[in-house]
């Protein structure tokens, strides 16, 4: 039997071998090799290193014989070289007399055995980059698994991926000589090993310390990344206290552990196979290519042109007159293919929303703990895809709204019980497609919005006049006004002034809007309605003289041909139109843009009722030419600041139409 000093080394080696075997299974290498690995692992466990070196050497031989055709992926190769490194270290030592008891521990950690080589590997940016990427993936999965564990401490199958994650990070960090990262990962791994063997129960305190360690590792990875970019060596934050806390968590009372101990021990052995299955889809995810967004944009441009060219050909009169069935068939085939190409190109910018939801899971956990509330997070529609830019910019508003729901929406457990509700509140995040939009739902079953309180607050802040008649929706929308917060006291969670107005600002920037449904005592649901992509806009093509402009449809409320009765002027100058009981100013687009209209008479044209920044106005145009989806193009650097113009779009005939920036149109007018 190995002595105490060597045991840790053996465990480490065994884990390494297990991981290696898992990867082998994943890549479908023959079962013979896997069996060999198992045997090897078994022996390592039983006898310590010395006897296994021979088998390892055989194995390495066998690995070298793997035909080049079989897919041995980078992970295997890396794992394998680590194993090899570990073994060669070992084989150097144990063949010497049985003196190695004390030195063994050191030798199993190659990075400690050869301090002279420090930073040699760190200088390989490729390796370090891979390390950062892979570690981040592990940390993300660690976080979600820990949350599962917290829900269900007996779910030992969740420990394994966490353990493996830390283990891999430790190994890689050791390989690359990031001693601090390695130290933390090592301690946590030891902690988790105890938990895995049911010697330690998973308590919230342990979950905390593991998550904290994950945070520390995340920060360290950021440091490494920064250092990599600046080509300096990484400086890590202090981890002493963290280390000691991890250790302290390990010495937790065994009595507690015993309660959790029974019935789980059996579940440990088959776990490797189960976890191998789990990680399979992940391997699929990694078949991706990073592409420069410039190239993607160019591709989009070209595809857009192809669609236009295709439609020009399709509507060519000579061709449509031709009585050639074959030609017609080919043309429609071409149209189908073009559409498919366009759709695929668009989808290349899309990301599933699930990652965003994952981040909120952590937030919900931390906040509910801090606020002493019991909250369960439910998510659905994680696979819903949305534009990368939108996903990135949605993160902050989403976090903020979840924070708000937890702080303002959800009551304390005793209040909930008093109200006859389940003490555990539910927060639901859902994403789905609806009518060409993406809807992100944030629902809580808390106390709901208090109409009276909102009204009182709005009056107090001068947002509304005394006696104003507001619909329920209008009242709810008040919470998005700047400086509005119904929280009576400022908590450290929310209520710090920056609030829902910032959220609305963000969402509007993404050309989306927020709708609210709320029932007192039953909860509140926020619906974030967002466009599928920022690259495409749906708009009304309007005509003014010979010019075509595109009015973004999200800004349009309605449109109508005015009658003389609906029109009035102030001092014979400012024109107004009566729309559904309210007087709205009229902006003549031809005057605003100084172009020749078809007719100056308002009754001969069309009024488009538009809303931007909460203000409504009527835009006077000649007529409506249609509704169209267009790809937004910049007008270029020299024309990017034209007031009232958001960009250009290439219309069906290949010419450029200007997309209106309704806010700019209105503002330019009020200055006159």
């Amino acid at each position, binding site marked *: 039997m190995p002595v105490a000093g060597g045991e840790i080394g053996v465990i480490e080696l065994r884990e390494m071998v297990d991981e290696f075997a898992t990867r082998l299974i994943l890549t479908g290498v023959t079962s013979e090799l896997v069996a060999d690995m198992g045997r090897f692992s078994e022996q390592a466990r039983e006898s310590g290193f010395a006897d296994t070196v021979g088998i390892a050497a055989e194995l390495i031989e066998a690995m070298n014989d793997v035909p080049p055709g079989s897919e041995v992926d980078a992970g295997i190769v890396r794992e394998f070289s680590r194993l090899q490194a570990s073994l060669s270290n070992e084989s150097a030592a144990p063949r010497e007399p049985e003196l190695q008891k004390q030195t063994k521990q050191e030798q199993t950690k190659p990075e400690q055995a050869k301090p002279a080589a420090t930073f040699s590997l760190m200088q390989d940016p490729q390796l370090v980059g891979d390390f950062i990427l892979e570690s981040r993936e592990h940390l993300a999965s660690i976080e979600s698994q820990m949350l599962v564990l917290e829900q269900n401490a007996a779910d030992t199958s969740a420990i394994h991926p966490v353990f493996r994650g830390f283990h891999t990070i430790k190994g890689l960090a050791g390989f690359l000589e990031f001693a601090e990262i390695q130290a933390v990962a090592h301690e946590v791994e030891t902690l988790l090993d105890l938990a895995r063997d049911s010697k330690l129960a998973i308590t919230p305190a342990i979950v905390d310390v593991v998550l904290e360690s994950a945070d520390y590792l995340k920060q360290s990875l950021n440091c490494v990344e920064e250092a990599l970019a600046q080509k300096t060596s990484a400086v890590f934050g202090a981890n002493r206290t963290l280390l000691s806390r991890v250790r302290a968590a390990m010495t937790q009372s065994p009595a507690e552990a015993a309660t959790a101990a029974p019935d789980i021990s059996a579940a440990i052995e088959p776990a490797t196979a189960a976890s191998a299955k789990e990680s399979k889809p992940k391997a699929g995810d990694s078949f991706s290519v990073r592409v420069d967004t410039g190239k993607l944009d160019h591709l989009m441009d070209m595809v857009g*042109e192809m669609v236009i060219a295709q439609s020009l050909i399709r509507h060519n009169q000579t061709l449509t007159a031709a009585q050639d069935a074959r030609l017609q068939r080919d043309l429609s085939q071409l149209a189908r293919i073009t559409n498919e190409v366009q759709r695929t190109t668009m989808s290349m910018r899309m990301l599933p929303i699930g990652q965003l939801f994952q981040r909120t899971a952590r937030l919900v956990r931390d906040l509910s703990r801090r606020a002493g509330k019991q909250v369960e997070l439910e998510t659905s529609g994680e696979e819903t895809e949305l534009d990368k830019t939108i996903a990135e910019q949605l993160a902050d508003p989403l976090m903020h709204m979840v924070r708000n729901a937890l702080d303002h929406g959800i009551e304390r457990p005793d209040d909930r019980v008093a109200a006859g509700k389940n003490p555990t509140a539910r927060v639901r995040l859902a994403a789905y497609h609806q009518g060409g939009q993406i809807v992100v739902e944030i629902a809580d079953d808390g106390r709901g919005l208090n109409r009276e309180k909102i009204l009182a607050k709005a009056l107090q802040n001068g947002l509304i006049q005394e006696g104003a008649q507001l619909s329920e929706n209008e009242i709810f929308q008040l919470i998005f006004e700047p400086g509005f917060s119904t929280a009576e006291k400022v908590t450290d969670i929310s209520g710090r002034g920056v609030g829902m107005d910032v959220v609305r600002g963000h969402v509007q920037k993404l050309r989306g809007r927020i709708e609210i449904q709320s029932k007192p005592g039953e909860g509140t649901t926020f619906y974030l309605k967002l466009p599928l992509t920022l690259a495409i806009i749906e708009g009304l093509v309007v005509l003014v003289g010979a010019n075509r402009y595109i009015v973004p449809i999200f800004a349009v409320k309605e449109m109508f041909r005015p009658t003389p009765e609906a029109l009035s002027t102030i001092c014979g100058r400012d024109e107004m139109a009566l729309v559904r009981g309210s007087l709205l100013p009229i902006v003549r687009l031809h005057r605003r843009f100084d172009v020749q209209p078809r007719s100056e008479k308002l009754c001969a044209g069309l009024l488009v009722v538009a809303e931007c920044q909460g203000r409504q106005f009527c835009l006077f145009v000649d007529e409506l030419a249609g509704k169209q989806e267009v790809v937004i193009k910049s007008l*270029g650097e020299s*024309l990017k600041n*034209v007031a009232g*113009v958001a960009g250009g779009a*290439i219309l069906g005939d290949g*010419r*450029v139409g*200007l997309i209106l920036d309704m806010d700019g149109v209105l503002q330019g007018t009020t200055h006159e």
Partner: protein
Amino acid sequence: MQSTHHAIAENSSALVAGDSRPGKYLVFHLGQEEFGIRVLKVREIMGIQDITAVPQTPSFVKGVINLRGKVIPVIDLRLKFSLPEAEYRARTCIIVVQVAKESGAILMGIVVDGVAEVLNLTAGDIENTPNFGKGAETPYLLGMAKVKGKVKILLDIDEVLATQDLQGLNGILQ
């Protein structure tokens, strides 16, 4: 931009060795005059087409066109040089040039009366811009070329469509 200043420095002194000006020039008509721009700056030449006007821009900015999926601004060089405006005819065309800007090269179209030829000019063909007196700085003139008795004005198109000019343009807009 560096090379431009370099060229100007040379212009003000006597002709020296290392003159960067010789090379191929695209010659086009504008009113009675003939102008030349470096061929390397030219991306393509296209017939006149529908230009979408952009509001609140100086009159020489004719608007924008679709150049194979990219929206590029078009400048009327006649108006830019304060020449009388002319109706666009069959020979009128848009020269798409690549202009160096601080943020990188961008494409712009210039409307000219017509394209004449491509000339290979040697250092001997090119003369410095005559001094029109103090104060009249003409950084966008590279020099004059005399070929077969006719004078062609060589333009530095980067300077003609220079940044400060268009920033001034933006200033007007705001």
